[in-house]
Every structure is written in C-alpha cells, then in structure tokens.
C-alpha cells in the first residue's frame, strides 16, 4: 500500500447540493489525502457525480465548504493547473483531430507536456490526425483520459473512466494511473466496476441517496459483513449422517450457504464433516465479503 501524506488535497465539509427542490447531497463530509487513491462509490442516483462536479468546480454547493489544494474549486486559475479532470460525459469538437484536441486542451491546463507522448500513452498514436467525429466511443474515452493526465497533474479526478473501454484499453489506462501513483499523484475515482475500486483504492466512500453510508479501507468495509462459504451436494447424504455443525442456509437453487466470520476454521469443519461421512461437495467456494456484498447490504 502506498504511503499517503497528511495534508488533505480535497476537503469537503457538511456539503449540501440542491437541484431545485431535490436535495441531491446532504451534509457530506470527507477528505482525500495527498497521494491517496480514493474511490467514491454508490448506488445509482446516490450523488457521486454531483459531488465530483462540486469538487471539480462545475457546480456551487448550496452550503458547506469545499476546498481543493486549500482553494475554492471554482478558482480555476489556482486549482486547475494542478488538477486533471476526466468527466463522465465530456465532449470534443468533432472537426478537430486527436492531436489538435490534446494540444488545445493541454495548453489550457497551464501544464507542460508533449502532445505526442500523451497521445501515445493512450494508444492513439495511429489516430493522431483522425478527426474526433471518426473515433469510436472507446477511443473518445481514451482521448478524454489523455487530456486529464496531460502534464502529470498532482490530482486526477476520474468519473467512470473505463465505461465503454475494452479489456486491453482498461488495462492500459490502469497501468498509466498506477505509474502516476508511483509519482505521488492523488486519484479520486467513481466507477460502477467495483473490482477496480477494490483492487486499487486506499479508501472508499459509499454513498446512498445523497448521504455517506460508510467510509473506510476495503478491509474495513468488507470486514463489517461475514464471509461466505457456498457449496452443493452431489447426492443426498446417507441416512444417519449427523447435520453439519454450522449455520447452513439452503438457497433456492438447491445450494447451501454459510456466513462465517472465521472462514478458515469453518471451512475446515465443513471439509472434515464431508470427509468423515463420505459426502461429495460440488462447486465449493469460500472467501471474505466482496465489495458487491457490501453494496447489496446498503438500504
């Protein structure tokens, strides 16, 4: 795990965001530390993108304070040279080429970089002279990423960065992010691909219906719920076989499930029981709670 600094890069305190009569985000408080990888996850309509848009300076909160590098995020001159943004939906002029788009947007970030290097980083070197209108959706997303990382900003905000990308492109994107993290870049991510957050995030904030539901490391979040052992039986156990000494739940598909806070011990108990009584287990799986399960437990 990367060592993170103590100075918050992003400091949100009791933020509220309102659209007309709809209260989209309520009393949100969180910090992102320097060098940290922070994932902001949540159910659909939880307020993640709205929160990010406030952090990015695209919207003003109704109340509360938001600071990025100690400044209001709406102070573009102070904040944006240090911050790269990959919006959830972001446009480019269709008649400009890939290289032209990177050059123009890059120059506006007030950071220095080489256009060819950035275009190559996202695998679009072969399409540098192609107009944006002729790019696929995934290629446009890669162009989006290119403009976000132009000039190696100290902070990058990635709003669903891999949506629309194929597996190889996703891998390349994360490799680039990993390299930036080695250089100390702070990353804020929202994504619907939970495994991305689970594999990389130092901390995760879970939002639901505009409020923070939980926050913590992956281990802290998944440790709140028991692990699961699931299995099926090849055949009914012979008569007289004692019941398995574990809290077993039969599922509707005929398999069995054991919630366990002591996976290793309970798995040993199960395997011992099956071995002693000649019971064949099929489809045996065992593991700690995944982030998916934490999500499903929301509400």
């Amino acid at each position: 795990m990367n060592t993170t600094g103590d100075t918050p890069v992003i400091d949100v305190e009791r933020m509220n965001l309102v659209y007309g009569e709809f209260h989209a985000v309520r009393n949100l408080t969180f910090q992102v530390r320097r060098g940290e990888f922070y994932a902001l996850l949540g159910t659909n309509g939880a307020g993640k993108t709205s929160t990010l848009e406030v952090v990015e300076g695209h919207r003003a909160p109704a109340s509360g304070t938001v600071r990025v590098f100690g400044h209001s995020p709406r102070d573009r001159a102070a904040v944006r040279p240090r911050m790269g943004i990959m919006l959830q939906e972001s446009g480019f002029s269709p008649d400009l080429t890939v290289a032209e788009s990177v050059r123009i947007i890059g120059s506006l970030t007030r950071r220095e970089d080489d256009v060819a290097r950035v275009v190559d980083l996202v695998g679009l070197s072969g399409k540098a002279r192609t107009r944006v209108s002729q790019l696929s959706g995934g290629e446009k997303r890669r162009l989006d990423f290119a403009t976000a990382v132009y000039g190696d900003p100290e902070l990058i905000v990635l709003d669903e960065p891999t949506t629309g990308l194929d597996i190889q492109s996703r891998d390349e994107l994360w490799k680039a992010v990993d390299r930036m993290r080695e250089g100390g870049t702070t990353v804020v991510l929202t994504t619907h691909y939970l495994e991305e957050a689970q594999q990389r995030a130092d901390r995760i904030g879970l939002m639901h219906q505009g409020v923070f539901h939980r926050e913590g490391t992956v281990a802290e979040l998944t440790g709140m719920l028991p692990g699961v052992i699931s299995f099926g039986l090849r055949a009914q156990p012979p008569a007289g076989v004692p019941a398995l000494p574990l809290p077993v739940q039969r599922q509707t598909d005929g398999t069995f499930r054991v919630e366990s806070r002591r996976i290793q011990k309970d798995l040993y108990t199960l395997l011992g029981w099956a071995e002693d009584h000649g019971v064949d287990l099929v489809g045996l799986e065992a593991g700690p709670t995944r982030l998916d399960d934490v999500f499903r437990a929301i509400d």
Partner: protein
Amino acid sequence: MLGIAHGELVQLFRNRLVLLTSFIMPIAVSAFFVYRHEVFSDLGSLGYIAAIVVFTVGAFGLYTTAVTTLASRRQNLFLKRLRSTAIGDAGILGGLLLPVTVLAAVQATGVLIVFGVVAGGPQNVVLLAVAVAATLAMLVGFALATAGLTNSPEHAQVTTLPVAIGVITVASWIGLTGTEDMELVKRLVPGGAATELILNAWNGGAALSDSLILLAPTLAWVFVAANLAAKMFRWEPRR
C-alpha cells in the same frame, strides 16, 4: 484564449456548410448591392448600401454563426470540457467568438473598401469604423443572449431569425426613409442609431457632434445585449 481561437478558425474552414453560410453568402449578398449600387443609391443613398453591407455581414457572418457555434459547442459538451481547464469564462467565450468576429470585421471592411473604390469613399472613415465596431459589438452581445435560448445548431436556424431579419429590416427602413420622420423611434430600435451613424459617416452632411450622440443608443444596446447575455447564457445543455 488564442489556442481556442485557433481551433475555432480551423473548424470554420473545415466545415463547408458554415463556410458557405457565414463567409460566402454574406459576401455574395453584399457584392450584389455593390454591383447594383446605382439602383440602390437612387432608392436610398450610398450610405444605405454601406449600412446594408455592414448589417448583412454582421447578421449572417457574425451573429448567426456565433449562435450556431455556441449552441453546437454546448450541445457536444465542448464548453464543459473547456470549463474543466484553467481558463476563465471570459477567455473561453473570447476564444470561441474571436475568429468569427475578426472574419466579420475583415469581410465588412473588404466589401466597404471595394464599395468605396467603385462608388466613392465615405466622408468620415473614423466615424464609419466606430459605427462598424459598435454594430459588431452589439451583435456579439445578442449572439451570446440568443445562444442561451438555443438548444442546438439546428434550433439556431429558428432562434436567430428575429434579430438577424430585424436588424437588416431596421437598416433598410432607416436607409430608405431617412430619419426626419419618427426620429426618436428610429434611433432607439436595435441597430437604428448604428444605421444612422453609418449613413452619416458615408454620406456626410451631419455635424460630428450630432453623429457622436448616436453612439449613446448604440452603446446602450451593446450594454443591454451584454446584460441579457449574462442572464441567459448557458454553459451546459438542459437536463
């Protein structure tokens, strides 16, 4: 800002439809008036032709193109992309509108120079330049305001009609009928005082002090247009 302006210029020359409607068409219409200047000067005056040229270029070369451009950049979220960078809103709008504004100024100047060679030059070049600049500034303000009401480039074909047709109609009305009747109304309508300024600058015969007074309603419309723009302009599509 100049980076954005360069990008806009590149796109202007890559988009044949925009090139035709914003560059070639206004020049063609203006060229027609210059070519038939004897007929039109009998109807109004040489100054009337100059006014029609300025307002035709301004309305179609600048105003309509600016509204279409801004609506297009908003619709495809390019405005939002620009606002994700370090440049301020004024720089963004300046960069987006600089090429069409400069092009309109060059077009108007070019056509007026040709007209001056063909039919005899203006009596007061400086006053004419001020009038043209004030007219273009007013139309930029109206473009920003109209863009706030315009959802798409296609929608711009409708939303731009009232101002575009309106200012050309005003210029024709005043150019053909003069300012003796309904003087106050003619000076207060959008483009009215600017038209009279152009007439005086080209035809002469009016005291400089009388002409300079016309700057007040002209600049007032620039102020009104800028205020409308500040209230009405949208950076993102309606959700």
